């Protein structure tokens, strides 16, 4: 939140004038719906530019960047991953552009009557969590720690989508996922907010990457993500601005 | 057919198999305990017949009855699989199981019938001993010579006591000594269990020695069947005659003699009328440098097309008409200076012609 000013010079749309070519954006898989929409809007605003999006796990993308993948912008799902790219000098000055809040995903109609975080720890209830090494997992751990609950999940999934799938297909009775995921699931699961969610907020940083071939367009795209119209797209998907 | 009708047949079969450009249609009737030789040129359908009897090849038409059991009946839609027939088969190329020792190959059939492994192996060892293979019991087929492999295949088939034993050239790879003892053993064994054997062989001697009934197949059809003596004396096709080392000519008997198919006439002593076969022993034909003036009633000019040493005699192929093989002594060859291309006169006495109805 503190370093947004550094790129403010590029904030005025149209000021760069002659943006052309294609720019490569690496984004965490969980950003797929929003960034697809953002790219569409950005391309509409800059007819000469094509945004090439590549989605994947944040760490996979980071590994590729470290191997020299030609990338202009990298949007990660957590700061730790971003930091590995920064420390290898492949990216500079990351900026947090969104944050995501955990919710309890349950089957439609909430058959197990889950109201609080404590309810998911009830014995006999099948709870799915992300693995502790992935962002949604560490966030969940923080939330449980804050609530003083000893949760006994049946599985530690490798990403949030897998947790969602388990709940959707009824294998798990509840799972801790992001609000954006619940929204994207469009009624196949419902979200239950819980108080401790504030303690486990996950922030999404974005940064310029040095390996790209079109830094100007990249800069403009980053600026667009941070602009009000960009933030509106993110908000519609359930993200909250990183105030 | 020489098996008389009073004797109950062990096997009665009519087999028809059709293939692109070739078909088989044979009748077989085999008496219990008998040995039938199946003779015929390459590609005549001998192996096909044998495989159809074993149930490894589905006949397209016909009926096979063994000891009263209907094994095949295309009308009734009956086809008993090979494993239920108790028909033993020795393949032309042995087909020993390559992953088993000779002993286990022979024990296989017994074990398949439920005999415990140890007993089956003992029985196998006895069979191998009879085949003079005791020392090779532990060998894999790959480590055996051709003849050894063939004897193992024979032992393997015999060990299961088939009701009918089918042997596709079982003696071809055996050396003279083994051949005789295996042959004798085979007879002894067959005499014992009252089954019957069908042997495919190319060796007319084998056929004559081993079999009490010979069936000759050519082009998928039975062309002659009978006792070895009948076959040997009165061959009905050129193939059979050549097998027996005889010349066979076909013609029409008239008062004047026999008018052959090639138009020439031979004088014979027998009194026939109508189509006949004429058999000429190669050794009964005389060879002269010029036209002879002796007692033989038949003589004709010919050209020598091949000269081949055979044991102590020399066999000449002579182009007439009629074309015949002639056996002469090496001395005669030297005296007459016979080589390929020589022109000669051939003679045969009327009493040396054997004539019988077609």
């Amino acid at each position, binding site marked *: 939140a503190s370093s947004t000013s550094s790129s403010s010079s590029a904030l005025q749309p149209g000021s760069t004038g002659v943006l052309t070519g294609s720019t*490569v954006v690496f984004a965490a*898989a*969980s950003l*797929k*719906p929003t960034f697809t929409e953002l790219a569409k809007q950005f391309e509409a605003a800059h007819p000469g530019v094509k945004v*090439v*999006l*590549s*989605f*994947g796990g944040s760490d*996979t993308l980071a*590994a*590729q960047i470290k*191997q*020299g*993948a*030609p990338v202009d912008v990298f949007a990660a799902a957590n700061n730790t991953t971003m930091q590995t790219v920064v420390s290898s000098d492949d990216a500079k000055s990351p900026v947090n552009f969104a944050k995501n809040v955990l919710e309890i995903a349950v089957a439609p109609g909430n058959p197990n009557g889950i109201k609080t975080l404590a309810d998911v720890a009830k014995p006999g209830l099948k709870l799915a969590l992300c693995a502790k090494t992935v962002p949604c997992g560490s966030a969940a751990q923080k939330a449980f720690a804050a609530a003083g609950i000893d949760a006994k999940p049946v599985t530690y999934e490798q990403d949030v*989508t897998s947790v969602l*799938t388990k709940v*959707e297909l009824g294998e798990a009775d509840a799972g801790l996922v992001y609000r954006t995921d619940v929204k*994207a699931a469009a009624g196949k699961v419902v979200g239950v907010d819980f108080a401790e969610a504030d303690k486990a907020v996950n922030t999404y940083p974005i940064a310029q990457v040095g390996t790209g071939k079109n830094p100007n367009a990249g800069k403009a795209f980053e600026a667009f993500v941070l602009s009000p119209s960009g933030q509106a797209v993110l908000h519609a998907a359930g993200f909250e601005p990183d105030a | 057919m020489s098996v008389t009708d009073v004797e109950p047949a062990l096997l009665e079969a009519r087999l028809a198999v059709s293939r692109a450009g070739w078909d088989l249609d044979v009748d077989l009737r085999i008496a219990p305990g008998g040995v039938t030789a199946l003779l015929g040129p390459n590609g005549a359908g001998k192996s096909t017949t044998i495989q159809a009897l074993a149930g490894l090849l589905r006949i397209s038409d016909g009926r096979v009855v063994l000891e009263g059991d209907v094994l095949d009946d295309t009308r009734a839609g009956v086809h008993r*699989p090979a*494993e*239920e027939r*108790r028909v033993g088969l020795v393949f032309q190329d042995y087909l020993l199981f390559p992953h088993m020792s000779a002993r286990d190959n022979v024990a296989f059939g*017994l074990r*398949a*019938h*439920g*005999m415990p492994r140890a*007993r089956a192996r003992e*029985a196998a060892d*006895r*069979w191998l001993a*009879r085949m003079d293979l005791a020392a090779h019991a532990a060998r894999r087929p790959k480590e055996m010579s051709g003849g050894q492999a063939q004897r193992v295949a024979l032992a393997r088939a015999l060990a*299961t*006591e088939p009701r009918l034993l089918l042997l596709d050239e079982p003696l071809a790879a055996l050396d003279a000594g083994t051949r005789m003892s295996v042959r004798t053993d085979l007879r*002894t*064994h067959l005499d*014992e*269990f009252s089954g019957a054997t069908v042997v495919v062989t190319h060796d007319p001697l084998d056929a004559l020695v081993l079999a009490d009934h010979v069936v000759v197949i050519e082009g998928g059809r039975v062309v002659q069947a009978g006792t070895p003596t009948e076959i040997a004396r009165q061959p009905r096709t050129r193939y059979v005659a050549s097998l027996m080392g005889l010349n066979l000519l076909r013609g029409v008997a008239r008062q004047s003699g026999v008018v052959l198919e090639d138009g020439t006439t031979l004088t014979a002593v027998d009194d026939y009328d109508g189509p006949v076969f004429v058999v000429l022993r190669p050794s009964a034909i005389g060879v002269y440098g010029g036209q002879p003036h002796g007692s033989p009633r038949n003589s004709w000019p010919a050209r020598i097309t091949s000269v081949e040493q055979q044991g102590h005699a020399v066999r000449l192929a002579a182009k007439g008409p009629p074309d015949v093989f002639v056996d002469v002594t090496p001395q005669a060859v030297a005296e007459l200076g016979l080589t390929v291309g020589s022109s000669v006169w051939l003679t045969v006495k009327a009493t040396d012609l054997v004539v019988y109805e077609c």
Partner: protein
Amino acid sequence: MTLLEQKPLPAKTSRPPYVLFVLAALGIAFLVLPLVGLLARAPWRSAPSLLGRADVTTALRLSLETATISTAFALVLGVPIAWCLARTRLPARSLLRALCALPLVLPPVAGGIALLLAYGRRGVVGEWLLRAFGVSLPFTTAGVVVAETFVAMPFLIVAVEGALRALDVRYDAAAASLGASRWFTFRHVTLPLVAPGVAAGAVLCWARALGEFGATITFAGSYPGTTQTMPLQVYLALQDDPQAAIVLSLLLLAVSIAVLVGLRDRWWSR
């Protein structure tokens, strides 16, 4: 007489090997039921629009192309490897054989990392490729082919070696006695005789390459049109539209059924 000592053997009444049929039926049911599950859950209504999408057809074409090229590479490199393993007395042959099978065991993502370490811009071979030819494999379609070949070739090698070992070596001897060099023999005798094995291996290899995900995304990335193959698209679709992911999977399946049914009966039946 040997035979008089033993009771006559009982006549057999043989039945088809029911055990085999029952086990086979069970096995097929086990494999096919999940596919039925997929079919039952697929949103057939939305399928047509999805299948008409340009990015889907692009990804499908890319998948088929890369899988086919990878299979071709695997054939060119893998069949000789199998031949050497089966027919020569190389030192440390069994170690070599195990090494060739390793990409099977390596979790695909780890495989991708290994590929980056070797063929990436900073990898041993990759650095040299870049300096010498200016070629960089990662994040290109060529990179997809490399990743798929790496992961899928071992299947081919193992299948072909098995076939070679089952072949009678004496055919080689017969060819040699007719004056054929080992190379001529390889092309005209050995290869045609192990054709069923090679075909089986190629099918395995192609199918594995077609379904390849982990190594590809790690080594080649996921750019639409260049490196985003169907499995990557399925993975991404899972993020926001699981139903679409099912349809895409089924599409992949349908295409490969068509190819397998079409090819194999022509290749295999002799």
